[in-house]
């Protein structure tokens, strides 16, 4: 499952950020590291970008950027 697919109010855990380009580096620098928890807060009125809560701050990502972050549900296994 990738970060653009999660639903609001369900915290997930980050497994990996794919790629080694500018975007991947930027995502990791913003604290999206393996093992970190992240949660969807909402979306812009046109559906994109998305707003997340991670490491105690609010982060905005476009859906196609969030796609680069692989996550799993915190409680159960990945569906």
């Amino acid at each position, binding site marked *: 499952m990738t970060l653009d697919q999660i639903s609001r109010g369900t915290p997930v855990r980050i497994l990996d*950020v794919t790629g*080694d*380009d500018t975007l991947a*580096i930027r995502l*990791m620098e913003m604290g999206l590291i393996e093992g970190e928890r992240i949660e969807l807060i*909402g979306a812009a009125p046109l559906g994109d*970008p998305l707003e997340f809560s991670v490491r105690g*701050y*609010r982060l905005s990502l476009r859906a196609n950027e969030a796609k680069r972050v692989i996550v799993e549900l915190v409680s159960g296994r990945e569906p």
Partner: protein
Amino acid sequence: MTAPHELTVVLIGNPNTGKSTLFTALSGMHTRIANFPGCTVEKKLGMYQDQGVKITLVDLPGTYSLSPRSLDEMVSVDVLLGRQADVGKIDAVICIADAANLERNLYLYTQVREIGVPVVLCLNMWDLAEARGIVVDREALSQRLGVPVVVTSAHRNVGITELKAAIHRVVGTSIAPVRPEFPAAFNHEITQLSQWMQAKYGAVPPLFLLERMLLDVGGESEKKLAMALSPELLPVLAASRERLAEQGCRVPAIETKVRYQWLREQLTGVVTRSSPVERVTTSDRIDKVLTHKVTGVIAFVAVMLLIFLSIFAGAAPFMDAIQAVQGWAAGWVESVMGPGTLRSLIVDGVIGGVGSVVVFVPQIALLFLFIAIMEDCGYMSRAAFLMDKLMTKIGLSGKSFVPLMSSFACAVPGVMAARVIENRQDRMLTILIAPLMSCSARLPVYMLMIGAFVPENVYVAKVIPLQGLVLFAMYSVGALVAIPVAWILRKFVFKGETPPFVMELPSYKWPSPKIVLSRVYDRVKAFVLRAGTLIFCTTVLVWAAAYFPEDHSHEMQLQSEIAQWEAELTVGWDQPALGRRPTTPEGDAPQGGPAFEANLSHPTSTSHEAKQAQLDQLREEAHLVSGQLLADSYLGRSGRLIEPLVRPLGWDWRIGVSVIASFPAREVVLATLGTIFSLGSEVADEGEENEKRFASTLQSATWPDGRPLFTLPVAVSIMVFFALCAQCAATLMIIRRETNSWRWPIVTFVYMTGLAYVAAFMVYQVGSRL
């Protein structure tokens, strides 16, 4: 060691940490703004005295990390390493962090401290963190990190003295070797790389750059070194990264992993909470409303409308006042100086030139007032968040919205506002298309042409007035053309991967009036000092081209006669039949021509009406002379020269001259048209009578063979040209200033003039065949 008399201190930190606030709190109003050579990064210096030492504070752009991926980002690294020649050696670094969000903020700190320069860690917005129940044991943090930790609330001036003292304490000390430990495999590769470079090139870059080179795949340090040394470096780096990946140290992930892990260990027990973690903060609740599908959009439209109307209409009284002062100053000079070249230079060149700069100040000040408030309170990033989807459709990002919207009022503040876009590609693209938005200076041109040549009382589909429709079309054409232009620029000029949007949405807070005002002051100062001089020079140059090389003595004589008649008429109005005859100034030999005869033949006591008629005749004569002088000036000659070029647009040389003369600003075209069609430049002033006179003269203007000059296709061709052209020196000069290069204003001028020419050509050629 004796204390030094001068210190250079660098201020660095993440965006939204109150860095500018701290900068202002430390250095007050003593700032200098310039650009770092060869790039678009603004160099902001602040000066202050402390304990008898002169301190120069260098403000670096807000950044989340020190992994340079562009030339602009490389500047910060070069400054910190003391490799930036125009800054020199660094004595200390203040690393500022948001006290409420230490973990992510300190990531940058872990990189900064590896440079080896003494660091003071400043935890800012301390009061806000306390209010949110976040407690930081700063003693413990200072012990663990081995650097002084100072807490500040810069917007309330709290902790500034302690920070200044801490800077003095660290200068000259060596930084404790407390840092995240990279895996042995990584260190091994760095040693290998260093040895390889030593053997191959006989020199090794500083350890910090060496590490950056290995860690930043496709980054600026890799590019720079490979370019400076040899491309052989790249496969060596790739092999090294591959070996690391095999050993479980995947580059670039390894760096963020090591640093964040280390930070979490350091912060455990240091950051605690006095109240339980709020899952939904006040800021979140505000956000719910302001980014909501309905309320968020309504709020956004309201805010943008307010900003737009403020710079479009709200700035008008101030601009009128500036023009009134300008008119008053010109009038005063005319009253104390006789007509002459010097007077013309002062009135039309100098006063006009200063006016053409100052007239932008109200719009710039108002726009930056709003931008500073929005940035300081946290709404700016929400505006980008709301508009991003829409703007990506034309290859831009949400951050381009405010600059482009502002450009509909005036491109000068619009281009300046583009500095809120951190990404260079996005920023350049926004700057290059901003002048296509229909600004308020085009409006007078549209109004004259539409009023004179688009039939009134004609309705499309029975309800839409044709005049209004044409005006709307003129307003939209620039924005519509901007879409393919942006697409082409993105495809061929600013190519490469789409810049990441990844952006923090900071917590909302009350904007600080002091910070807002100081930012407005900074921008106005930067505009007047750095773009203003260029705009002023352009105005003076165009004045000279329109004035020389002709002999203006006849015009001057007419002007002094008119002045005397005007004076007499005013006197005569108050005290009838005084019978004073205007005298010619001594030594000014009377010349022939109707003006002279009119002067001679006027009786000593005439009725007021007769005097008025004489005066009108004189004025008409002066208008004819001025028109002829302009036609024979360098400007007029160049207009004649380019006539073959503008003929396909349906224009004669007189229109050509007027368009060239409008280079300083579009609206100047009206005054020039007025002069060259012998109406006097005053005809361009507001007023219904002026408009009617202007329109009827243009309607009756003809080609030498008697055909009417202005037809509807010609009028539309002129309007379309003005919609798309770059006849605005101020915009070009501000682009020069913001991009720190002459290349981009030239590109803008060439592409816009080209577009304008082609569009005007098509409109005229198609229109005149219909």
